[in-house]
């Protein structure tokens, strides 16, 4: 089996006595798409927040490529090649779509510190920014302020920001949530395209998306790992069916 790039050991997070993530052991193999599923409130977003340093664990450890990153701040983890998208779209209201991507591209260098230079220097990222915008289907909307974009396009920009970091590990929190069918298909194609050379962890409610993309699936429930394995196995697991997938998915 391929080496593990992202691992958690007994990862735990409490919110004032409420255990949102409870002793999670996760091992994501390099180059795979690993889906994280589970009912609302299962702790998926909290797990992402722990992995990316936005929350400090109450217990346990996190490793990226064998390196302990437990307790590192978000910007350090991002610099180590772990990028995330947010379940609730998180953009800069004053910036245009292209300026968003330029800002994301600029983050990898030291250009951001140059307070004595002109912002026109960001022009060097323009070609790459336009490429990324085209990739997510925003090529016509580069000048539009992020505020004015329709919901589905905002989700696309959210993806473009994570991709701009060219991460080794890409964490996507419900990238298709609230999207129309066409946008869902486009997003699946996109993830399929950008997964080459990366490891993707995907929180997703849409089981057909999970089936199309995921190599392995981890099912979370009430903060714990309920089941883990290849999609078809997990899908057939009795406990998973009663706990989560239920009749609706069996029918669909």
């Amino acid at each position, binding site marked *: 089996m391929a080496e593990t790039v992202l691992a958690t050991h007994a990862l735990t997070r409490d919110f004032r006595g409420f255990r949102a993530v409870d002793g999670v052991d996760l091992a994501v193999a390099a180059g795979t798409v690993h889906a994280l599923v589970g009912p609302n409130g299962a702790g998926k977003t909290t797990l992402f927040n722990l992995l990316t340093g936005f929350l400090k664990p109450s217990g346990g450890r996190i490793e990226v490529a064998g390196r302990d990153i437990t307790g590192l701040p*978000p910007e350090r983890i991002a610099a180590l090649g772990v990028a*995330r998208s947010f379940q609730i779209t998180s953009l800069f*209201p004053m910036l245009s779509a292209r300026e968003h991507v330029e800002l994301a591209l600029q983050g990898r260098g030291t250009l951001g510190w140059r*307070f004595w230079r002109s*912002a026109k220097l960001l022009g060097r990222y323009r070609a790459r920014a336009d490429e990324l915008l085209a990739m997510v289907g925003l090529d016509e909307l580069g000048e539009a302020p992020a505020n004015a974009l329709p919901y589905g396009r905002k989700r696309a920009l959210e993806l473009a920001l994570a991709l701009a970091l060219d991460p080794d590990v890409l964490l996507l929190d419900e990238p298709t949530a609230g999207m129309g069918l066409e946008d869902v298909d486009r997003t699946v194609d996109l993830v399929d395209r950008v997964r080459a050379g990366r490891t993707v962890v995907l929180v997703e409610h849409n089981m057909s998306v999970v089936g199309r993309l995921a190599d392995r699936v981890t099912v979370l429930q009430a903060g714990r790992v309920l089941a883990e394995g290849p999609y078809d196995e997990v899908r057939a697991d009795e406990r998973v069916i009663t706990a989560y997938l239920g009749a609706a998915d069996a029918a669909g």
Partner: protein
Amino acid sequence: MSVATQEKAKRPPSLLRAVAGAPRGLRWALLAAALAVTLWLPNGLYPAVAVDILCWALFAVAVDLLLGYTGLLSFGHAAFWGTSAYATGLVAIHAGVPFPVAVLAGALVAAALAAPIGYLAVRRTGIYFAMVTLAFAQMIYYIANNRRGLTGGENGLQSVPRELFGLDLTDAYYFYYAALPVVLLGLWAAWRIVHSPFGRVLVGIRDNPARARALGYPVHRYKLLAFVLSAFIAGLGGGLFAMAHRFVTLDTLHWTTSGKAVVMVVLGGIGTLWGGVLGAALLVRLEDWLSFSGFEAVGLVTGGLFIVVVLVFRRGLWGTAADLLRRRLNR
């Protein structure tokens, strides 16, 4: 106030951006007009008042760099204005260097002081940031008051020499023109910072710090550099202020001095940069006129003006002018 002002700071109207869409000719005309007014100022006002406007303009622009472009309300910037004033005065007294060198040295001392204060303060946001900066400024005030040997205590620092290659600058009219290059340099620096790659990151941090961190930006360090740069520009203003008055008093470190700079920014418009210049001109001129006419309750009038501007021109004077111009041009 902080919550309301921070809300507004999120959407900075920009006269420059409005003008950027305007014909080139209009842009140059506006710039020429601004330059003409600047050069004429000591002929239309008391030269000493004109010089004060220059100093406070730098101070207000420095505060706006933090408030408008980084989303941090400093209520302790008098620490940097006043520290630079004292440092400039001491350098001038003891080293006898040309006054711009003394001012530059004062501003560097202010920036050096801002590093440890900022390091601790940027870990807080909103009203807590304002409180931490205020607390440090109060500390500096008491230190200055106690170190009488250095600062002269309540008597202040007296007889600061104003030297520039033997030129006679005793007349405020001539000092205005001698100080102008330093001021324009400081204002240009602020403009450069706002329109740099660094400035772009600052606006990102102001509007969505979590996203900025997810993109790999060390938000605290960026805020710290913004804080130090702002203190440097405030220090240029404070140093010139010491040179302008040729003495330095504890007032330069007082919390009301911090408050005055914030009021200037709000009057002119948060996040407009040049609004601070306008706010400074207005407030300095008004205070001078009120005290000259023997009016006692200066604070009552400036406070009243503040309330009217906040209520009627919600984006400040400059911001409102920018909006009007933009609407005209877009028609």
